[in-house]
């Protein structure tokens, strides 16, 4: 009885008692959601456009952020460093296409997935070789990212909003809107979806996989750079950041591998669900449940919709 009360009544009582905390929790959830979505977006781009599940997205985030900071430390002005980093991501995209993807065209998804794992290994080694293993600070000021905090008294309590988080939310929304339009409205966007469906058929109608792949990997590289800047400004830039990419998985799956808006909605659901769950129900079992809560949330949604909320329908025909 007591346990039922604790599980089903108390949390809600608490929510109504301290609405300011609820608001703060929701805000934190939204912000983490946006940040997860930024990472997930990189996955979506590549998956949607080539059917490749890119395991290396996490390390690409780290790699981009490290390059940016590394260049800055070498004395390159921040904005130039940003441009140069974009250039590096382009080179990476070209190299990946040449060396990894081109020879593996038309192979099963899981093989390409494995290849991106090889890429991850390679990038980890290369990144550490070039930049060393020590954590670095993101050059948030030099990039004119707002710092600071606004504390508002809302619903009877102080609620804090980090300016950085607001910036992240705005930037992420812009990117996502732009990509969503790109995919559904443009010629290249359509070609990207075609490639994801079938390499073979795409080849046969003259879509240049090579070109397409460079484009999406570059786009994913840019998204990784943005994610790297945002995450870096929040948590510092180090190789352990790549672990966070794992959190992008439930987001991705929840939203559907192929949906750009799905990434953001999935991110928000996971972010908010995780924070609210941990905040109100975590203490019941000793806390730390946000390590798996996201996956369980995703699983529940999947049982209802096996292709994720916005994923393309899984075609089952015979």
């Amino acid at each position, binding site marked *: 009885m007591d346990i039922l009360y604790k599980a089903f009544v108390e949390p809600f009582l608490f929510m109504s008692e301290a609405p300011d905390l609820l608001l703060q929790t929701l805000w934190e959830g939204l912000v983490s959601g946006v940040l997860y979505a930024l990472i997930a977006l990189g996955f979506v781009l590549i998956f949607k456009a080539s059917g490749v*599940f890119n395991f290396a997205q996490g390390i690409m985030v780290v790699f981009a952020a490290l390059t940016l900071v590394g260049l800055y430390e070498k004395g390159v002005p921040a904005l130039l460093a940003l441009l140069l980093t974009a250039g590096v991501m382009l080179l990476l995209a070209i190299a990946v296409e040449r*060396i*990894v993807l081109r*020879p*593996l065209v038309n*192979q*099963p*998804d*899981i*093989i390409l*997935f*494995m*290849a991106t*794992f*090889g*890429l*991850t*290994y*390679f*990038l*980890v*080694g*290369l990144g*550490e*070789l070039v930049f060393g*293993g020590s954590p670095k600070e993101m050059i948030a000021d030099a990039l004119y990212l707002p710092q600071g905090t606004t504390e508002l008294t809302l619903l009877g309590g102080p609620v804090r909003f980090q300016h950085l988080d607001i910036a992240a939310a705005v930037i992420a929304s812009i990117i996502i809107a732009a990509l969503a339009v790109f995919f559904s409205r443009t010629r290249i966007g359509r070609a990207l979806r075609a490639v994801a469906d079938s390499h073979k058929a795409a080849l046969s109608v003259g879509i240049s996989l090579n070109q397409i792949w460079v484009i999406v990997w570059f786009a994913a590289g840019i998204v990784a750079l943005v994610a790297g800047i945002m995450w870096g400004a929040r948590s510092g830039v180090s190789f352990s950041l790549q672990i966070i990419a*794992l959190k992008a*998985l*439930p987001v991705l*799956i929840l939203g559907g*591998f192929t949906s750009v808006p799905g990434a953001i909605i999935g991110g928000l659901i996971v972010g908010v669900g995780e924070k609210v769950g941990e905040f109100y129900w975590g203490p019941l*079992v*000793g806390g*730390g*449940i946000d*390590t*798996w809560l996201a*996956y*369980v949330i*995703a*699983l529940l949604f*999947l*049982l209802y919709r*096996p*292709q*994720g909320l916005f*994923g393309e329908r*899984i075609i*089952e025909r*015979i």
Partner: protein
Amino acid sequence: MLYREAGQFKTTYFSDMAVFRLREDRTGLAVVVVAAYGLAFVGTDFLLQAVLIPFLVFSLAAIGLNILTGYAGQLSLGTGAFMGVGAYSCYKLMTAFPDVNVIIWILVSGLFSAAVGALFGLPSLRIKGFYLAVATLAAQFFLQWCFIRVPWLVNYNVSGALDAPLRTVFSIPVVGATATSQARYIVVLTLVIALTWLASNLVRGRIGRMWIAVRDMDLAAELIGIRPLQTKLLAFAVSSYYCGVAGALMVFLWYGGAEYDVFNINQSFFILFMVIIGGLGSLIGSFFGAALIFIMPILLGIILPALLVPFGLSIGAETIEHLRFMIVGALIIFFLIVEPHGLARLWQIGKQKLLVWPFPY
């Protein structure tokens, strides 16, 4: 003419259905097995303890995952956790009943992991492909959380970790501080050979065919009367059984004590990669994969410095590590490009070429 199919006729279906249809293959296998046992007596501690035992353990786990992912086509990222279930239940069993032969408990602990695996396999009826990975990821993180949060699992150990009490087989210690690497190796080798044999029986029979059918086209499989859920769950259970046993072997015969962290998501990925690079749907591929993913970095760690020293380049351990990462990554990509279907296929092609040798086709 070392390797020829010609002249070896099968007069019964029975002999035609043997695993190794060619005499040469059978001899080859016998040689390998004998050599493997032989290594126990000539191998150094390093070879046995740091190379062969883990290699065998990973091969077993890879066989487990291969059954699920390679044969039945269900992608799983929860291998680490399922190994953990095996290890923790083995610990509970062998501390609760210390007098029973530990090998029995190792084998029994797999059953617990099988049950847990089947439970987490339930969503596979509805969820497929990469999406299914989330169900297994949920298993991975949830179970890992349990390992650390349920102190009962480690008998309320102050260290919160698993340790390996002394256990003997025929009064030779095989688990615990005093067990020699020889003894451990022989136990692991024997178990791995036995379980591999059973797995090969299974995958060649009706059940194996049903798994492959579900993998290749689950809709068609259902239309010819295969119950998809049962078949998938069976694959989850059998696969988790193997992983569980591998987990128990890993903790008690290799590490000799471990924290919950050894069952983390990286472990799951690690084994998945062995399976893919070795060859999905191939038992021998599991061994190849384990060798490539586990042993190759060790070799590189030994070879690289030796290679670089003559050039007057003395480089630090971390640079070697970085190079090792890069080379392993590059090699993985290289092997995939050479043969996307894994080392097992490469092996097969090699044999085929040998069969027609000296003609090119």
